[in-house]
């Protein structure tokens, strides 16, 4: 055998060896692919289960917010169902699936539980054990496997955190072939009942507009600002920058709409900025102007994420005067009309005592207990006014006031605290006048209805008929420019809170009360304690006169007009109104 023959024979002997190698490789590769697919699907499932737990926990938090205060010892089945339904809607609790939320407790207990914390447990970095578990019947226990009873349930107002543990298992396809077992997936999201931005019983309403003005905004002071970060700014009149260096802006993606076509302003937005002190109209979201824009100065900026301006943009040479519109390719279509979101809301009513208390005039250290007035001390150091119908009352003492009807209530001495007990206060005369420095107005569950009348007889300032009229949402048969007003003529602290409920109002001015000084803040301004004031200021036809910087005006702010009468006034807050500053956009916030 020669060398060539041996070589051919050797090659024939090696033929086919690659086939088992490839077969093994395919098996190995297939195995890796199977492991990868299983792992990938398991990861996707765990992501989904985390989402389910998040949604369920938030649903529980929303329920708690919407059902406060509640009572201790009553069922929390609503909380349980809220979490259960949220889990079901996203893929848990469906018959035949192994995912369940709230979790099925392992062991002997057959209860499914939601978790509740009534302490500030999540201030710590560790994951604390819940102190209440809620079963499927809304009953509660202090341990997951304990004895569940209605009586151990806390009041909704006592619940600070809710958790929605989810129990699931991986669905392993290829691993099961080789004897693998499913792995448990147990996410456990916790939501804090801590936000303040919504909820049907929240004290802080969420509305599309944080600042709604049904007439004009007149900015008269250099450096004045109007800000909103918790909703849009909608102006149904004109915005006049009658000064330089003034700003109107929104943040957090909210827009600004100005529609002054019904006001015959000449231009809906009128800017007079100058070099070094330009005016700014800046919408974080969309900006819409109906009725034209006039630059009567230079270097001013009008900008929005998107911008539409219908009507004339002027005046002559505005571009060569370095005024800017952003984006430069702005649209020219009309902006969406808006109407008063409160146009159909019923006016406050008072069904309290009808006792005639008109004998009470000045409450001072010389006052003695008589009729509707209870004086404490001799000479008196404090006083209490019973529910009743009053005339003009002056408070020269720290006083506790009960709901009633008043022509006027004047604070006459410095550094007094006036406490209002919960209820509706109707004013039909000149209204509230804080005429002393250092005054604190305090109380919760309050509505101040500022209307018109004669003597002690409150009456509507005109007949209101809601309609689809833009932007007012209705019309008055007549208006009364002398309706009750709120005068803040001192450095006043507004620790006032509206009742809980849908869109609560703290100051409700009769819609036909066209007092241009309806809410007046002097140069000493108003401040508020943490979390105050709550509820909105609603003065459909009335004016807000502002002389000092403040974010402590009740919010949302729905007024007929705004006038700035001083320099460097900042009204509102770029991070939301004062009520929303420390809160979130919803009552539930995921904390874990």
């Amino acid at each position: 055998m020669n060398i060539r023959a041996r070589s051919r024979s050797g090659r024939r002997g090696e033929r086919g060896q690659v086939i088992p190698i490839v077969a093994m490789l395919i098996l190995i590769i297939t195995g890796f692919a199977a492991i990868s697919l299983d792992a990938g699907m398991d990861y996707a499932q765990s992501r989904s289960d985390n989402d389910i737990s998040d949604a369920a926990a938030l649903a529980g938090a929303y329920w708690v917010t919407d059902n406060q205060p509640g009572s201790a010892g009553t069922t929390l089945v609503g909380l349980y169902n809220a979490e259960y339904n949220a889990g079901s809607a996203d893929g848990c609790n469906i018959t035949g699936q192994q995912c369940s939320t709230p979790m099925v407790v392992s062991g002997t207990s057959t209860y499914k539980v939601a978790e509740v914390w009534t302490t500030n447990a999540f201030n710590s970095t560790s994951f604390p054990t819940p102190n209440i578990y809620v079963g499927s019947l809304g009953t509660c226990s202090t341990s997951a496997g304990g004895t569940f009873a209605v009586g151990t349930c806390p009041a909704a107002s006592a619940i600070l955190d809710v958790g929605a543990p989810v129990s699931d298992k991986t669905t392993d396809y290829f691993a099961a072939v080789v004897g693998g077992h499913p792995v448990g997936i147990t996410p456990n999201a916790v939501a804090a009942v801590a936000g303040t931005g919504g909820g049907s019983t929240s004290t802080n309403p969420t509305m599309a507009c944080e600042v709604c003005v049904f007439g004009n905004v007149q900015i008269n002071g250099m450096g004045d600002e109007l800000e909103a970060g918790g909703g849009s700014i909608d102006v149904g009149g004109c915005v006049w920058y009658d000064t330089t260096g003034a700003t109107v802006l929104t943040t957090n993606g909210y827009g600004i709409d100005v529609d002054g076509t019904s006001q015959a302003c000449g231009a809906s937005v009128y800017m007079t900025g100058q070099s070094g002190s330009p005016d700014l109209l800046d919408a974080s979201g969309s900006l819409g102007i109906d009725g034209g824009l006039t630059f009567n100065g230079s270097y001013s900026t009008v900008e929005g994420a998107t911008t539409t301006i219908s009507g004339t943009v002027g005046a002559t040479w505005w571009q060569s005067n370095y005024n800017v519109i952003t984006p430069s390719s702005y649209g020219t279509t009309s902006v969406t009309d808006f109407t008063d979101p409160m146009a159909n809301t019923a006016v406050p009513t008072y069904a309290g005592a009808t006792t005639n208390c008109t004998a009470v005039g000045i409450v001072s250290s010389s006052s003695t207990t008589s009729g509707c007035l209870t004086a404490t001390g001799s000479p008196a150091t404090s006083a209490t006014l019973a529910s009743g119908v009053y005339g003009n009352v002056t408070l020269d003492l720290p006083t506790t006031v009960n709901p009633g009807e008043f022509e006027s209530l004047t604070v006459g001495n410095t550094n007094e605290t006036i406490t209002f007990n919960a209820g509706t206060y109707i004013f039909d005369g000149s209204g509230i006048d804080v005429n002393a420095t250092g005054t604190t107005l305090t109380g919760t569950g309050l509505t101040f209805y500022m209307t018109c009348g004669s003597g002690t007889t409150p009456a509507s300032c005109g007949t209101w008929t809601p309609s689809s009229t833009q932007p007012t949402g209705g019309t008055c048969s007549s208006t009364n420019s002398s309706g009750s007003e709120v005068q803040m003529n001192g450095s006043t602290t507004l620790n006032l809170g509206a009742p809980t409920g849908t869109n609560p109002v703290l100051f409700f001015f009769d819609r036909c009360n066209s007092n241009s000084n309806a809410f007046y803040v002097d140069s000493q301004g108003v401040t508020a304690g943490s979390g105050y004031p709550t509820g909105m200021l609603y003065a459909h036809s009335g004016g807000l006169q502002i002389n000092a910087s403040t974010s402590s005006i009740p919010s949302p702010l729905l007024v007929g007009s705004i006038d700035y009468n001083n320099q460097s006034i900042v009204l509102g807050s770029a991070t939301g109104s004062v009520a929303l500053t420390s809160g979130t956009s919803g009552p539930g916030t995921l904390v874990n």
Partner: protein
Amino acid sequence: MVEFALCFPILLLFSVSAVGVAHAEETANDLATVVRDGARYASVNPALYGVCAAGSTTCAPNTIQGVIQAEANSVNQSAGGVTLANTNCLWGGLPTPPALSASPASPSIPTNASASCMTIAYYASGALNTAACAYYQPSANPVFTNVNSGTCTATSSVSTPVFVEVIVAVAQSATGNPVVVLLNGLHITPLMTRSYSMEVVP
């Protein structure tokens, strides 16, 4: 050489399939993120369905549909994002949303839309199989359409706690996806549908 020639197509198919499946899974995860965040936004801002032309892919960022579009466009930027049109999905040929479901049946995408659609539906209860009570219709003046009158509203004062379900559907683009090309060649159009539900904050 012959063995390599036999094995190579198989290995190539494995590799290409892995890329295709991974891409499809990535898109699915992207859409899951989109509908989750969209539903959360729609739950706390139920009245912020804004003015935006039907079919637009660039709605304002402070609107529900704009948030969903922006999220979709950003989740997979390396691949150019997922483009979503402001177009209602069709359910049995109609825009009326299906009953609340964890895995709604695949809708159809209107033929005049780009390869995507979205449904933003509201329900008077969070219980499964609850019929939709209202949904948004995109148009120059957005319409909140009640399909069961009086049961829910998208204003800021919702009287009945409701659920919102955001559903998006995307027809997988054939571009750059060999598996999709293959499926398209077989006249099988892959349609990715994801949904997520949240209780609405009144």
